[in-house]
């Protein structure tokens, strides 16, 4: 990786032993290729990820957008290799970092990727940090484990990192415990840990979801500054269409374990090419205008143990035709130059052509899903499976 990227800040960090080992070709850092993950549970197999592919370049922010259960967090965890197996199993695909598949790497080697090269910021800082160790100790652990530093040097480094993420009084608070910090400050501590070894790729999984909006603004600004400063590739996982619009370069929209649309941020907001993206954009209330009724997408995201045949979005889709229900799920294809979408009718969605034959109204969809086949004719095993899913039933 490029450690020399022009910041004076690096002067006090010793030369990393991994330098030269990982060299991105043409700035291409991370390639995820046809990744598949399933969860084998007592109640059946939930197909959480069904062939996800994307690329990440240096200095780029890729946002993965999706609702709960769409597989966005599982994708991140699969890349990091932190999925619990069982129940999770990688059933296919590759994750290449600088051209090498990290999924098949021996654990020892992988440990040298995870942390120094690719690191992650989690959603809930309170549960991601260890409550019984001081925060400084936890940040310093990165230097102790990966760099073999002694306690004192590593703690000094932790202090300077805490200063970098703008924690006031870092030197005094380095020995404080996670519960003594506010939510925003804890998130800063996690970010400090994640960037400690100057990774080339940072994966942020809903980094601001648990925070208030004024604090969210602070954290997003910090992440943005750090990314600019270090030319990191940032994968931002979120369900917030507002956050994405502010920071992302490219967006991948996920639905039922697939990327259904991938494109430049400006184009996707201006004219979505997939009906799901379109529906999402129409269903968010806007701060700057008082709308009438929200155009909600009818129905619910599918149960991952029973993904509908055909295009997984077809029961909720206003554009759905017979082909959508019968043919295998449409692959992600280039609809317009540089814009990928997985829909048979993307051209029509793009144009939102008036002559398009809309086969179902929103009400039909709503009715079909609320009362329709799923709950009504639940077979006994299904019913139990559903029961076993329990509250939550999301990633």
């Amino acid at each position, binding site marked *: 990786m490029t450690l020399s990227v022009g910041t004076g800040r690096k002067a006090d960090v010793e030369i990393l032993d991994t330098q030269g080992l990982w060299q991105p070709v043409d700035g291409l850092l991370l390639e995820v290729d046809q990744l598949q993950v399933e969860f084998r549970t007592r109640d059946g197999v939930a197909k959480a990820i069904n062939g996800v592919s994307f690329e990440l370049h240096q200095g780029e922010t890729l946002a993965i957008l999706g609702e709960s259960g769409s597989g966005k967090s599982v994708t991140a965890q699969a890349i990091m290799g932190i999925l619990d197996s069982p129940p999770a199993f990688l059933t296919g695909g590759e994750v290449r970092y600088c051209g090498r598949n990290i999924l098949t790497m021996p654990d020892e080697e992988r440990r040298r990727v995870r942390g120094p090269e690719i690191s992650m910021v989690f959603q809930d800082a309170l549960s991601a940090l260890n409550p019984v160790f001081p925060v400084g100790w936890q940040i310093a652990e990165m230097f102790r484990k990966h760099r073999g530093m002694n306690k004192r040097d590593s703690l000094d480094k932790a202090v300077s990192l805490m200063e970098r993420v703008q924690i006031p009084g870092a030197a005094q608070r380095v020995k404080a415990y996670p519960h003594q910090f506010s939510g925003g400050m804890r998130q800063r501590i996690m970010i400090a840990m994640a960037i400690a070894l100057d990774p080339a790729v940072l994966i942020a999984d809903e980094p601001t979801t648990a925070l208030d*909006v*004024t604090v*969210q603004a*602070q954290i997003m600004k910090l992440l943005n500054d750090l990314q600019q400063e270090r030319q990191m590739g940032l994968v931002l996982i979120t369900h917030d269409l507002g*956050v994405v619009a502010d920071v992302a370069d490219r967006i991948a929209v996920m639905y039922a374990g697939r990327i259904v649309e991938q494109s430049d941020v400006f184009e996707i907001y201006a004219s979505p090419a997939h009906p799901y993206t379109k529906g999402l*954009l129409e269903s968010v209330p806007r701060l700057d205008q008082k709308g009438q009724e929200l155009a909600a997408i009818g129905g619910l995201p599918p149960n991952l143990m029973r993904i509908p045949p055909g295009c997984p979005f077809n029961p909720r889709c206003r554009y759905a035709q017979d082909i959508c229900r019968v043919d295998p799920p449409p692959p992600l294809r280039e609809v317009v130059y540089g814009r990928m979408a997985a829909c048979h009718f993307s051209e029509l969605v793009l144009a939102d052509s008036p002559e398009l034959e809309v086969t179902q109204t929103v009400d039909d969809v709503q009715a079909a899903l*609320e009362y329709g086949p799923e709950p009504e004719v639940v077979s006994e095993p299904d019913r139990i499976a559903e*029961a076993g*899913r329990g509250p939550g039933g999301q990633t």
Partner: protein
Amino acid sequence: MTREVVLQAENLVKHYPIKAGVLRRTVGHVKALDGVSFELYKGETLGIVGESGCGKSTLARMLLRLEEPTAGKLTFDGVDVYSQKGAAMRRLRRDIQIVFQDPYTSLNPRKTVGDIVGEPFEIHTDVLPKGDRRQRVQQLLELVGLNPEHINRYPHQFSGGQRQRIGIARGLALNPKVIICDEPVSALDVSVQAQVVNLLGELQAGLGLAYIFIAHDLSVVRHISDRVGVMYLGKIVEIGDENQIYSRPTHPYTQALLSAVPMPDPTTRDSREQIVLTGDVPSPANPPPACRFHTRCWKAQEICSIEEPLLVARPDGESAHDSACHFAEPRVVV
């Protein structure tokens, strides 16, 4: 236009004692709510926004009299709520109902939907004769867009959005006049959230309900509210109709809050000015003196830490609305 006031809060105060030491002596107070006044008119929605810890949920509990006030007065339809006792209070409770935030924990997992939605009739037995209850519950389910045949199902058989509908049906059971919605959609996904917001809108139009809509999502609040109050550390700092608050906010906190909301439109990325506040919300156990926002405010001057600004009408460019700032002036932030 004269509008009928259904609910009137006057100077509501709730302090929770902090106890410490062996003798559990009171060493201080968490000032969760420190003088909140507002009126709720018939059939309108009053949105309450603010960050966590500002007292939004305490306010909800006070309005339902789930908490006894430290001071203040709450009037419902001319009746003083906090002085009612026994049967009279129970009767009053029918008219003010709540929809909770978390549809996963606010429904008893061991009860069927019919039991949950029908429970209000078990408590208020004189509302409906026993024989009619099941039918009424089915009507309610239909009203909120659920299949009435699902009356014997358990909460876990429903998705988050459907569960929230069950919670709403329960809230509607006794034909209340006011529903307090405490973050009713914040646990839901965007596409499902829109369905529930629409449902709340339809119910209001159909049944003439008044809502207190508490949320931290400013976009949702704008969408559903007629008037909006902004809270900071136990006080309302600005209140006005939806357009006044969002288009011509005069309080610096409101301005910062609005400017921090990311807009789902990448083209506004560079043109929009964002006011990034420093630091966190101070502890309500030890709030800053006088104006509580002065520690984070870029406009703060000496007077802000000496004299508390009152929540009174201040000009906002076109008209005037209530704002608690010495230096209130309108600023366009969205």
